[in-house]
């Protein structure tokens, strides 16, 4: 643990930094697996190729985080079966099994990506140094993913607004409920299985973060994405307000 002493102000900062990297890497691997699944299930050759390319992009993100975590000597714990991540993955697999490309895009590119972009930005700014550069550059790439999909979803909404909004609402409550429980002040459904020891939410203040602003910024970005897609604000506010907190 030599690196730890050199690079970190305290054991608490080391631990919370380790947990942040663990969550980021696990999230990227979930994203990678999601796109890999999508490549399997969809028939359209162009969508297939895009999914593979996308899976590779998430793989590179995971690798980037892993390499840097190793350099810092962090105590990284990757757990794709951690309860929240696993439930999100199951939701994704459900829609993938139905070959519902649009639903998969909504889950991965709007919901998960909103949380990733926002939390990477906040975490990067809080951690500073080389971590900041890494987190912000990955956030930037995730933003491109999101923007691209938002355009696609705008077109989908245009085709049949009522059906699309109903469908979105269903996916929202299936998936955002999990992300909301995950990002609530306390883990509403028990330990995440990724953080070392106690939940990092209790330790975020060591790196000048707090769970309310992380969650608030993430939900704000999600709300903005929904606005841009064209979902009426008076609907999305109700959806968001009803999430568990």
């Amino acid at each position, binding site marked *: 643990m030599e690196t730890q002493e050199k690079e970190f102000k305290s054991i608490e900062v080391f631990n919370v930094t380790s947990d942040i990297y663990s969550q980021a890497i696990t999230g990227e691997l979930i994203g990678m697996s999601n796109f890999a699944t999508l490549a399997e299930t969809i028939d359209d050759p162009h969508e297939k190729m895009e999914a593979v390319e996308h899976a590779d992009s998430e793989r590179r993100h995971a690798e980037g985080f892993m390499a840097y975590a190793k350099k810092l000597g962090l105590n990284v714990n990757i757990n794709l079966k951690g309860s929240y991540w696993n439930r999100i993955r199951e939701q994704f697999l459900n829609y993938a099994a139905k070959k519902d490309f649009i639903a998969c895009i909504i889950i991965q590119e709007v919901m998960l990506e909103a949380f990733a972009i926002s939390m990477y930005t906040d975490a990067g700014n809080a951690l500073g140094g080389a971590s900041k550069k890494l987190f912000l550059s990955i956030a930037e790439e995730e933003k491109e993913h999101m923007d691209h999909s938002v355009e696609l979803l705008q077109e989908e909404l245009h085709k049949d607004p009522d059906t699309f909004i109903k469908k979105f*609402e269903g996916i929202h409550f299936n998936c955002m409920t999990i992300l909301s429980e995950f990002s609530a002040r306390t883990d509403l459904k028990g330990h995440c299985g990724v953080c070392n020891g106690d939940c990092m939410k209790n330790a975020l203040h060591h790196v000048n973060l707090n769970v309310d602003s992380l*969650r608030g910024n993430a*939900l704000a970005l999600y709300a903005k994405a929904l606005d841009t897609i064209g979902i009426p*604000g*008076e609907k999305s*506010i*109700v959806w968001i*307000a*009803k999430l568990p*907190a």
Partner: protein
Amino acid sequence: MRTSELEELPISKIKAIYDYIPPRGIFKMHVKSLTGIETNGLYIDTFIAPDKLNAQNLRANIQKVKDAVKVVHHLNIKMAILGGFTSLLLEGNFNDFEDYDMVLTTGNSLTSAYVVKGLEKAAREHGISMSESNVLVIGATGDIGMACTNYLKGKVNRLLLCARNMNRLKTFGQRLLDEGHEVKYSSDLSELAPEADLIISVASSSEIAISSLKPKVIICDAGYPKNLEEKVEKVPGVFLFHGGMGQLKHGYSFNPDYTSQFYRYPAPHLGHGCIIEIILMAFEGIKENFSMGKGNITSEKIDLMYELSLKHGIELAPFYNSDGILEASKNNSTT
């Protein structure tokens, strides 16, 4: 799954993240005029938490107001009123929105109209002569305060003007003195309150406390936050009502219906003067910004808005305060 529209908006659940939420529409409104015209509106919330309304958050708050106007623009809505503190944050300045092809107003002309007409009505009902009364305006250098003062000058015995910033107060007070009106101004409320027969409170402050009042004084509280009642010396005979409000005799409806949550008043179909101003602008097809900037509201604008209000079946709200409808109004409080 129950559809979300059937349930009320559980705002309490988003308290912790309230001010992170980007401005958005919350509910649609539908209103009818006495003339048979109908119109629709959308209530957009800026999601600025009351405890964030401070100098520290000024820039962020102004940005939120601008974002809210952008929402209006994106929804292709052609007119909007910046209600409550949103126009205060911009100081009534709409220059940033010139490219939006949109008609805007602060709604302060009709608010001022309801304030002064309400005061006149209350005085009449209590047998008090306006021309013999000294009228105290708290917040006299504000947009509504100036509008009310300008409207009342020449109609009352003496104007008593109060605000904290002495420079602005002096400039305004001196102008009225130069015009030949009887005026006394002070930033110290206790110097003015003992002389007042009628009081208009249009300051956005929770610090105002009034004491040493004359018996039977009439107070129109149109400012926010609404807490003047707790801070007024409990003199028997004080008649304090919440002003600046109208009553839409032909009703309105919200969709989703959040009236039990957001808009609860002791009489049916009450609305803020500012919001009713945009409704009237829609009814009348007014294509130019109406109330804007600070200190631009003339008595003509006040009278015009009030006439339009009556034309469309929107009257002064019955007198009420946090205890409910006030005795003098009980007979005409229902629609």
